[in-house]
């Protein structure tokens, strides 16, 4: 049995002086990270956090976010990382949905934190990191906690069936859903991925993905588990700066999504010495075969892993790199220690060449959606052995004669933009919130950089609305990655015979 905080604790015991985290100009050893996380955990406990309670972390990728995740775990809590571009209303929704007991937020959002402490009744403590210049009466400061609480490691109060984290993902109903991961799920998934990536202690992984996204989060968790070094960046906003950092830190592992690789392939990479790179990984959406070829040409010394997964099982499939030339369109086989198959609508397993839903079995199958038994029952159903549950992915796949899997399409209308899921319903709900919008429909349209770009079709009730009005409203209510790129004003939208908006004709 292993608890997720032990990823850090074991590395701190084994190699206390090794630099585990490079972020914002800081280089923190495992012993320093451990001490800071212990102080925060002891502080959270002193403020009344109890076993199993949720700690929401509303911070950009930063040292404080890393400390927040491990501090929450060490206190026996459950971490919930909320994307830093999430707007107030959704943030309040998530905090209320998971009944957060503590909130650690960036000092820049001190006013929101103060409002939240009044509308989220479950909140016992709000910590600002860093403390905002205009000191608030109601919040605590991250720095003060670091000064006043003990760096002693708290006693373990959890077992590995307890929840470690909730990862919110865009749900088809429009409301985000928190995927419950227990400690054993995370420990298993992290070990399986480390196994096939052949990670070792001298790996230095750069992460530009938000830690609110499971793909980004697991970079941190895995690196701490195998005792490597994580270079944590705020994002991929300045590609040249990232490449320079990779060169300077001698990075060996680079996880990306198709949008990032599309940007990289447009750049002149010969100016950077990236020879330290051992592997690249891609997931979240398929890389076009031409990009696979070009990445092979640009990084002939590095191994490329094509992968597939969903938050509900973390990672599901990976293509062993020696298969890449033969099957560039495949996302491979089940990750070590797990199995997958394809089923038709009646629950019959399908053979090669037939298209059906991918079903996943293994200890990485997460515990369900927080507070949503209906959605949980639809996604997680009984498996072959009584009492066990398998995950129905909602994704259609086919397999070849040798058992390698190929993604075909989704069963629902979820959009993948920059590799992350966007539920059209969530964007449509925001559009309907703008006065003057009578009807709204949102679809994804192919985009060479984003994968899919978001396009909104709106019908007004006669109110004068400009594209800028619509986009300004979206900007105030949606995360960056959910922002429509195009807005089309229509006289009316196509309908089905029952009067529902029909999206099939829209483009």
């Amino acid at each position: 049995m292993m608890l997720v905080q032990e990823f850090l604790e074991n590395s701190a015991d084994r190699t206390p002086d090794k630099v585990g985290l490079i972020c914002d100009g800081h280089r923190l050893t495992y012993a320093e990270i451990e001490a800071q996380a212990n102080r925060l955990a002891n502080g959270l406990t002193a403020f009344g956090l109890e076993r199993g309670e949720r700690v929401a972390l509303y911070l950009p990728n930063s040292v404080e976010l890393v400390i927040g995740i491990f501090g929450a775990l060490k206190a026996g809590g459950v971490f919930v990382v909320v994307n830093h571009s999430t707007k107030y209303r959704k943030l309040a929704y998530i905090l209320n949905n998971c009944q957060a007991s503590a909130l650690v937020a960036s000092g820049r959002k001190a006013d929101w934190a103060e409002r939240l402490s009044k509308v989220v009744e479950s909140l016992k403590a709000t910590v600002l990191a860093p403390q905002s210049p205009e000191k608030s009466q109601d919040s605590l400061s991250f720095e003060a906690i670091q000064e006043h609480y003990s760096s002693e490691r708290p006693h373990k109060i959890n077992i590995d069936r307890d929840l470690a984290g909730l990862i919110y993902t865009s749900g088809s109903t429009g409301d985000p859903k928190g995927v419950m991961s227990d400690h054993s799920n995370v420990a298993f998934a992290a070990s399986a991925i480390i196994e096939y990536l052949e990670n070792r202690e001298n790996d230095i992984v750069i992460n530009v993905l938000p830690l609110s996204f499971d793909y980004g989060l697991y970079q941190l968790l895995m690196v701490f588990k195998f005792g490597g070094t994580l270079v944590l960046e705020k994002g991929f906003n300045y590609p040249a700066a990232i490449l320079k950092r990779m060169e300077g830190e001698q990075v060996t592992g680079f996880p990306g999504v198709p949008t990032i690789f599309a940007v990289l392939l447009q750049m002149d990479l010969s100016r950077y010495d990236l020879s330290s790179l051992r592997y690249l990984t891609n997931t979240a959406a398929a890389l076009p075969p031409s990009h696979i070829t070009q990445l092979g040409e640009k990084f002939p010394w590095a191994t490329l892993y094509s992968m597939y997964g969903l938050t509900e099982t973390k990672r599901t499939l990976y293509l062993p790199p020696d298969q890449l030339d033969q099957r560039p369109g495949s996302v491979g086989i089940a990750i070590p220690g797990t199995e997958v198959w394809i089923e038709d609508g009646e629950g019959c397993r399908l053979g090669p060449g037939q298209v059906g839903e991918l079903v996943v079995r293994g200890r990485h199958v997460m515990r369900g959606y927080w507070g949503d038994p209906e959605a949980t029952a639809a996604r997680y159903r009984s498996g072959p052995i009584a009492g066990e549950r398998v995950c129905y992915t909602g994704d259609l796949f086919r397999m070849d004669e040798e058992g390698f899997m190929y993604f075909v399409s989704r069963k629902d209308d979820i959009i993948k933009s920059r590799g992350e899921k966007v539920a059209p319903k969530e964007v449509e709900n925001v559009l309907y919130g703008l006065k003057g919008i009578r009807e709204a429909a949102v679809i994804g349209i192919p985009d060479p950089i984003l994968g899919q770009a978001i396009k909104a079709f709106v019908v007004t009730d006669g109110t004068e609305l400009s594209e800028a009005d619509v986009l300004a409203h979206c900007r105030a209510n949606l995360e960056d990655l959910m922002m429509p790129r195009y807005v089309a004003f229509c006289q009316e939208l196509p309908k089905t015979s029952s009067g529902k908006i029909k999206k099939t004709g829209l483009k």
Partner: protein
Amino acid sequence: MRNVEGMIRTYIAENMLFSDNGYPHSDSASFLEEGIVDSMGILELMMFVEENFNITVEDEEVVPDNFDSVSRLAAYIRSKSPVAASAA
């Protein structure tokens, strides 16, 4: 040529903030930390600079020192474009 800072403020206000009341931040506010411009926005800014100031932006110049606030971007544009420099 109009004031460089003013052109940048107007561009961001109209194309990224979709704002009716201009650019509501100071010229030294960090685009990313304040959430003024998102990751795709930096690429858009790069194209805006190339098209409007007739300069070629090299990949390695797209770094926070040059692109993370109105003042920094204006200083960068002046350093690359003599016309913009004289219009300061």
